[in-house]
Structures are given as C-alpha cells and as structure tokens.
C-alpha cells in the first residue's frame, strides 16, 4: 500500500533552475513596482512640504484662516481658496449625487435591456473627456448660458437668499460648480451602477416576493445594500473635484475673496496653484503656493483613506 518513500522526492533541487530563478525574479519585479509607487508618493509629499517650509515657518497654521493674498506686501493666506474649494466641491457633489444615483438606477433597473449598454458606455466616455476640454466648453458655452439663463432664473425664484443674488456673470462659482458636477457625475454614476448590478438577485427577489413594488424594493433593499459603497464613490468624486485645477481655472474667475453670492468670482486651492505658479514673483509666493499644494495633498489623502475605510468596514460587516 505505502509507496516506497525513497522514490518520492520532495527536494526543491528537482525544480528546473530557470523555474526557480523566474519565481524569484517575478517577486522582485512586482516588489520593485510597488516600491516605486509608494516611493513616488513619499517623494512628492517631501518635495511639497520642503518647498512650503519657508511659508509654513513664516505664517504657521494661521495661514489656514488668513484672507491675505498680496504679492506686493508678501502676505499670503489660504482661507479664500479653502472656501472656494469647499463651496465649489460640496455644491457640485450635492447636485451630482442624486443625478448619479438616478443614472445608475435607470441603467441597472429601469431602462430597457438594449439601451443599458450603449448609454452606459456613453456615460463612461464622459468621464474620459480631458478636463481642459470641459473647461473650454465651460468658457464658450456654459458660461454664457449661466449668465443669460441660469442665474436670472435662480435669482427670480431664490433671489432673497444672498447665494443667488448679485450681478450675473459668465465666470464665477456657479459655472465652476456646474463644470465640476459634469466631471463628478460620470465617475459616481459608473461606480454606483457597478455596485447596484452586484446586489444579489436573491435580495431583489426576496423583496418582490412579499409584494414590494419596484420602487419599494429599490428603496428598501438595493439602496441600503449599496449605500456605503455609494458614499465611498461620492468621497472619491469630491476628491476629484477638490483637486481639479484646469477646468476650474477656466471658469471660476480666479479672484481671491469670499463673496456671499454664487454668481461672483472666486478661486480654489488647485486653481490658484495652476494659475499663479508660472508668474510667482517671490520665493515666498512660490512657497505659499506649495503650502496650498500641501493642504490639497493632505485633503486628497484624507478623502481616499476615508473612502477605503468605508469600503473595508462594509466588507467586514458582510463577512
């Protein structure tokens, strides 16, 4: 019954030499690639903080809530741009979230089968349009429409709110918000669509089998199931909006200051860096721009970590 044990060779020397080397080589290649990725992240962070060091030591944390940005007096602060970034990103997110979820629901549940794939592909294509092209479209098409149609319309209904009052303009926060909405929506909707399509069939049938309508099933079963994943997608979307420079620069008016109206110009962290780095007149200004970049870097890391934490927690709770 038992095989003659001397005939069974378990020794690694039996493997071909090239085979053994190949396995080791494969490990090193993949390890090197991983290290490069981590190394680049660290190198960028080091460089940004190194460049920002003079501004950090001169202005300290007070930089975060200073409204100065004056190249003549060499006084700089980030508050205007933090405000511009926060308002443009969050309002864009607030508009994009329901639209994205609606698109995703339509494409997974409601649209006829033959329509789903082509329309889904088109939405994906939208996410691939370079931001500079969207920005250009923002200048040429969106801005004039905002000035002549959208802002007068909002003003006539909501003009009593300071956000929707003031002089109409083709550049400013509102066009920036709309451009960002257009950029976030395809990302969030395609992730949401993926999530919705993975809701187990058993769950859907379970809900319908007790007499739920399609909408009750979506609200009671599908959305709770994908909710955390959609929140993670929204965080990734807002991360994209926060970091977007070019398209925002093109339509926001690149003017420092905090204005109560969405119709007025503003500026964001990313947009300020992109628009001023070339023309910076002093080392301190360059350093202050690097300080803005450092804030942006920390923000984007936080957004990504937040999204990952949510996804991981959900995966764990589902076992």
């Amino acid at each position, binding site marked *: 019954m038992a095989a003659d044990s001397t005939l069974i060779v378990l020794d690694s020397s039996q493997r071909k030499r090239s085979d053994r080397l190949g396995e080791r080589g494969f490990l090193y290649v993949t390890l090197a690639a991983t290290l490069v990725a981590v190394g680049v992240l660290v190198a960028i962070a080091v460089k940004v903080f190194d460049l920002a060091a003079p501004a950090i030591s001169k202005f300290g944390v007070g930089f975060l809530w200073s409204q100065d940005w004056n190249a003549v007096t060499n006084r700089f602060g980030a508050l205007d741009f933090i405000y511009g970034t926060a308002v443009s990103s969050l309002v864009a997110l607030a508009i994009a979230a329901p639209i994205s979820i609606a698109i995703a629901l339509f494409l997974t549940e409601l649209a006829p*089968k033959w329509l789903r794939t082509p329309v889904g592909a088109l939405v994906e294509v939208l996410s691939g349009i370079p931001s500079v092209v969207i920005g250009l479209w923002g200048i040429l098409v969106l801005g004039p429409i905002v000035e002549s149609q959208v802002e007068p319309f909002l003003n006539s209904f909501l003009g009593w709110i300071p956000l929707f009052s003031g002089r109409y303009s083709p550049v400013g926060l509102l066009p920036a918000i709309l451009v960002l909405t257009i950029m976030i929506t395809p990302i969030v909707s395609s992730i949401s669509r993926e999530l919705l399509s993975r809701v187990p069939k058993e769950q859907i049938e*379970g809900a319908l089998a007790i007499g739920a*309508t399609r909408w009750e099933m979506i609200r009671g079963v599908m959305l709770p199931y994908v909710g955390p994943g959609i929140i993670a997608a929204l965080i990734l979307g807002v991360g994209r909006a926060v970091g977007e420079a070019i398209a925002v620069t093109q339509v926001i008016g690149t003017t420092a200051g905090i204005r109560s109206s969405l119709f007025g110009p503003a500026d964001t962290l990313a947009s300020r860096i992109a628009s001023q780095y070339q023309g910076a007149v002093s080392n301190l200004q360059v350093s202050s721009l690097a300080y803005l970049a450092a804030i942006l870097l920390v923000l984007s890391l936080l957004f990504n970590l937040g999204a990952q934490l949510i996804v991981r927690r959900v995966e764990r709770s589902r076992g």
Partner: protein
Amino acid sequence: MDDTPSTPRSDLKPIQISERTRPGSSTRDIVFDVQKLSLHYGSTLAISEITVPIYKNHVTAFIGPSGCGKSTFIRCLNRMNDLVPIARVTGQVLYHGQDLYGPTVDPVQVRRHIGMVFQKPNPFPKSIYDNIAWGLKILGKKDNLDDRVEQALRKAALWDEVKDRLKSSGLALSGGQQQRLCIARAIAIEPDVILMDEPASALDPISTTRIEDLIHELKQDYTIAIVTHNMQQAARVADMTAFFSLDVSEGRRAGVLVEYDETTTIFTRPADKRTEDYVTGRFG
C-alpha cells in the same frame, strides 16, 4: 414499512410515507387551476402544457430530475418569472378563478397573496425584527407591528430562539434559522399561498427536519406548493405530488408533467413507468 428514508436506493421498495390527514377528496377546494401552461425563454420552450390543480390547505410537492422545469413552473404561480425579460407564458393560471396573467392583473398584488420562500435563505441585511416589519410597513399594516412580528416568528417556530435579540442582524442567524426567518417574513403579510422553491436544499438534516415539521403545521392555515429534489421530503410532507420530467422528443428539451396524484399513489402505485423509475431510484 421497513425501509428507512435514509436509504432510498437500497432496493426497489417504495419510500416510507408518513401518515397524514387529508380532507375528503370530493370536497377539495381548488386554489390554482393551471391550464396548459407553457413558458418560453426566448424561442426555447422550457415547460410545456402543464395542467394541474392545486388544492386548498394541501401541501403539493413538485418532484423530478434537475432541469425539468419545476422551479420555472412554481415561479409562474406568483409571476416571479416576470423578472426574466425573455420569459413568455402561454396558457392559464387560474387563482381562485382569476387568470393571474390577465391583462389587468398587477403582479405586485399577486405576490401579496402568494408568498415565496427561496432555495437559498435570503434575509435582508436588516435586524431580525425589521426583516419582518419591513414587508408589513410597505403593505401599510403598521398597526400592532410588534404583535404581528411576534406572531409571524411564532408561526415560523423561530420566536423562542430569537425573542431576546430581535435587534440583531438577520444575517447572524444560522442557515436553518435564516430560512425560518424567511418563512416568517412570508407569513407576516398574511398570504393565502406559500410557494417554496427547494426550501431545505441548502440546509443540514436537523434544520431540514424543522422546516418539514413547520410545513406540516403551516398547512392548517395556508396552501403550500413545494419544489424539492428530495423524494423522501416530498413523501414526508406532501399530500399531493406532481412528477415532472424532461421530454427530449422531437428535438426539444422541455419540462412536462408526467403524473399527478396523491403522494401515496405516486410513491406506491405510480401509473407511469417514468414515475416508477424515478421514485424507485432507477433514474434521476
């Protein structure tokens, strides 16, 4: 009856059939009168011209080899096949005399009267309480919610095991408990019929026994149709048994109803050779 249920194929003797109470056959009320029901997936015929009555407060079992359309058939009874866009139904399913596939029939209303329990336990990722309360809420049965939840759990023989942890997740229960939770969920909305699609096939033998005991109790109040690939199970729980088979004649592969009779007859004196081969273990 010297044959034990655990050794169905040891010889050709019929499987043990448990004693059951049955109303007199002359006074049986018909809940479903299925007439020449066929279903196509696209151009492929899946089940062909099924004609079968299903009686009130009876347990009716649908048995047969894999792929013979038992599940497809039972899913026609609560219009669950509507979810498959390419599925097309012909023939009639008369439910208390109304055609379920009539032009004005709302499948949502159909499913409120005809509940379903699935092969794989599928509780919602909600608390035990909310798994049952959710259906009640969407159906507008919001009064005495706590009582209704308790009653449903009691009827599903789960109350004693979960009464102290109604707020914990339904997914934290064992497989057998999850399936009883799903039965409770179906019962809670006070249906008339409960369809069960291989409800114990994913469960261990002890959990299976509990589900079968439960089926016995539930038939006092409900009409039950159960698909099973387990012949002993059909013999143990069902009053009536329908044997489905795959008809491969004329180049087609469609599920057909071979024989339908009282369970005792199907397992002891089947009229059709194919039924006999199947229940005695020579085939399938």
